[in-house]
């Protein structure tokens, strides 16, 4: 592993007299005291970390913790007050305007929370924006933009206007625009936060898939624990402009550095308040059981959506059981194609009642190999609780 980005002693002070505020910081005064005395605001204080090539590094924190400022300092959209940022062995703080622009054109791309697509450009022109700015000829621009759009599955929409696309599709264009330059570093500022939960997890999968195909160094800003754990190789947790802990998700989970970090991961009280019904999500595939519903159809549905499990209910939405790709294939092989969905049910599926508390559900979710099905008093399927859904509920209940 080689170090791609090394950040040392990085500080940002917003205000007119940053030197004074830095001096006070060195003396150990808090952000609040400095603000009260000088009116200077500490954006980021003394950030130190190294990011390996090919790593997804997630910076997490609440609003105002300085994470957006931090990521914008990496490409100097926000000028750091002090410190150094070494990318591939070169300190970008010492770069001239010209070199910095070259770096932004070639090595670093950015994806924005609000997509930030140019409304006057077509989808492919948006994807080609970085290339156009960098001065590539028209044919190259078009070709590379189309390749990038293909990578995110939007090639058919190349001639559309951004306004004609849904939020998720717009962000795919944002991603394509960032990929078209073939950068070695992607900066993603809350890139999926403006999307609805389903689209968000879809985009997370998309990002992981792209990352598996072509390793880039990704700095991902998020305030969503589920997202951070799902995509992050390592997390950095920020509080009030400082990085309070850096580590792999499980390391942080096991040994949180302070209460702030702990609060991201756990809140005992609320797990007794929230119930399984509260946190169950309807984002699993449901298969309706009726005469003639074939195993092949179920299998195709699961494969099309790239899911492993399907939740079987009847026309009145009563829960019947769970099938998996494996069990469906098994049943198919056993029966020469005449099997019904019931033949493929996984054994020992015990749905949990929707009024059971979150803390009681925890061991069940932990043990269950599939998202735990939840039913109400009438046996109607309410949703399912995956491990990530459970964790996200924990993260939200800070």
């Amino acid at each position: 592993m080689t170090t791609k980005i090394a950040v040392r002693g990085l500080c940002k002070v917003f205000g007119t007299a940053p030197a004074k505020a830095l001096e006070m910081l060195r003396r150990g005064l808090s952000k609040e005291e400095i603000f009260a005395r000088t009116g200077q605001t500490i954006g980021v204080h003394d950030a130190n970390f190294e990011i390996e090539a090919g790593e997804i590094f997630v910076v997490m924190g609440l609003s105002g913790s300085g994470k957006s400022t931090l990521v914008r300092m990496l490409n100097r959209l926000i000028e750091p007050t002090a410190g150094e940022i070494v990318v591939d062995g070169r300190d970008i703080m010492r770069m001239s305007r010209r070199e910095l622009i070259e770096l932004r054109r070639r090595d670093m791309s950015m994806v924005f929370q609000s997509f930030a697509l140019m409304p006057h450009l077509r989808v492919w022109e948006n994807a080609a924006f970085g290339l156009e700015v960098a001065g590539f000829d028209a044919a190259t621009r078009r070709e590379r933009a189309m390749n990038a759009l293909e990578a995110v599955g939007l090639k058919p929409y190349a001639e559309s206007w951004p306004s004609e696309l849904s939020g998720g599709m717009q962000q795919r264009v944002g991603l394509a625009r960032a990929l078209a330059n073939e950068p070695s570093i992607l900066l993603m500022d809350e890139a999926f936060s403006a999307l609805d939960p389903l689209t968000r997890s879809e985009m997370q999968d998309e990002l992981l898939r792209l990352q598996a195909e072509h390793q880039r160094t990704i700095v991902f800003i998020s305030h969503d624990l589920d997202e951070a754990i799902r995509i992050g190789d390592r997390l950095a947790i920020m509080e009030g402009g400082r990085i309070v802990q850096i580590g792999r998700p499980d390391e942080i989970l096991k040994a949180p550095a302070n209460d702030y970090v702990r609060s991201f991961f756990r809140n005992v009280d609320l797990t007794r308040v929230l119930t399984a019904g509260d946190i169950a999500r309807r984002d699993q595939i449901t298969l309706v059981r009726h005469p003639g519903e074939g195993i092949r159809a179920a299998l195709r549905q699961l494969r099309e959506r790239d899911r492993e499990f399907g939740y079987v209910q009847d026309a009145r939405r009563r829960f019947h059981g769970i099938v998996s790709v494996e069990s469906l294939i098994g049943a198919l092989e056993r029966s020469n194609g005449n099997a019904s969905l019931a033949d493929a049910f996984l054994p020992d599926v015990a749905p949990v009642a929707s009024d059971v508390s979150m803390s009681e559900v925890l061991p069940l979710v932990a043990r269950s190999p599939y998202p735990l099905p939840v039913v109400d008093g009438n046996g109607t399927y309410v949703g399912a609780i995956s491990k990530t859904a459970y964790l996200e509920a924990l993260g939200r209940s800070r």
Partner: protein
Amino acid sequence: MKFELPLGDLVEAAVEFLMRHAQWLFDAIEIVVGGVADGIGAALGFPPGVVLAGLIVGLAFYRVGWKFAVFAAAALAVIFALGLWRHTVDTLTLVLTATVIALILGVPLGVAAGRSDRIESALRPMLDLMQTMPAFVYLIPAAMFFGLGKVPGVIATIVFALPPVVRLTSLGIRQVPDELVEAGLAFGCTSRQLLFKVQIPTALPSIMAGVNQTIMLALSMVVIASMIGAGGLGNQVLRGIQRLDIGLGFESGLAVVLVAILLDRITQSFGKPRTRSARATARSSAVPGKEKESADRRAVMQPAEPGA
């Protein structure tokens, strides 16, 4: 004892001073403005009236739609029938000349004001003055510096019609969502590229609204400028007033209104976004992020409560 602030005397002295010592400057301006006016006048006057009218109707059809094209044809026919065609062409010449020069001056000024608070605050009082000073007042120095005729008329018109395009260009540049500017910079735009590839295209609807306003103000001023011999439809209106000829006044007034409608609709069509929903997205793609973004920024600016 009576004391009066001798401001009027001062202005008079200044004008006289300029006339004595800066006549070369006014001559130069006169040559340029007169040249542009003659060029545009020749271009409009060169084809037979029917051809020019046909071009206008064609433009109305292409930019707005067939219904408006029918209206345009009818309006131009009325103008022909009233025998006001020649005057209308004169008026169009004045309006286009003033507009072209106002845009050449105004758009760059607006861009500069949009990018710099200092320039904006320096320009603002001047624009306020230009816009609110009664239009007739411009006629006096214009006539003193440039005599009577087209050129002083055009110059008074430029002064009166310049503010909207400057203001709306500046506003348009300022309203470009922050994240678009950020995106532009993040992908390696130089300052120049940022202006031409992000800010101006995004501000275009606003800039075109300014162009439209400038044209409409120019038209209204051109009528007034007939008082110093600018000619055109205004002249006919003026003649109507002087002779108390209500018929003539009404006919030429109607022609002015028709020209105004034609100019307004056609120039407005250039300000429309390219797709019906493009403007809506500019908004929708900006809003959720912008809200968050600025909230985040605000939070950065203030001490956050720890471990909330």
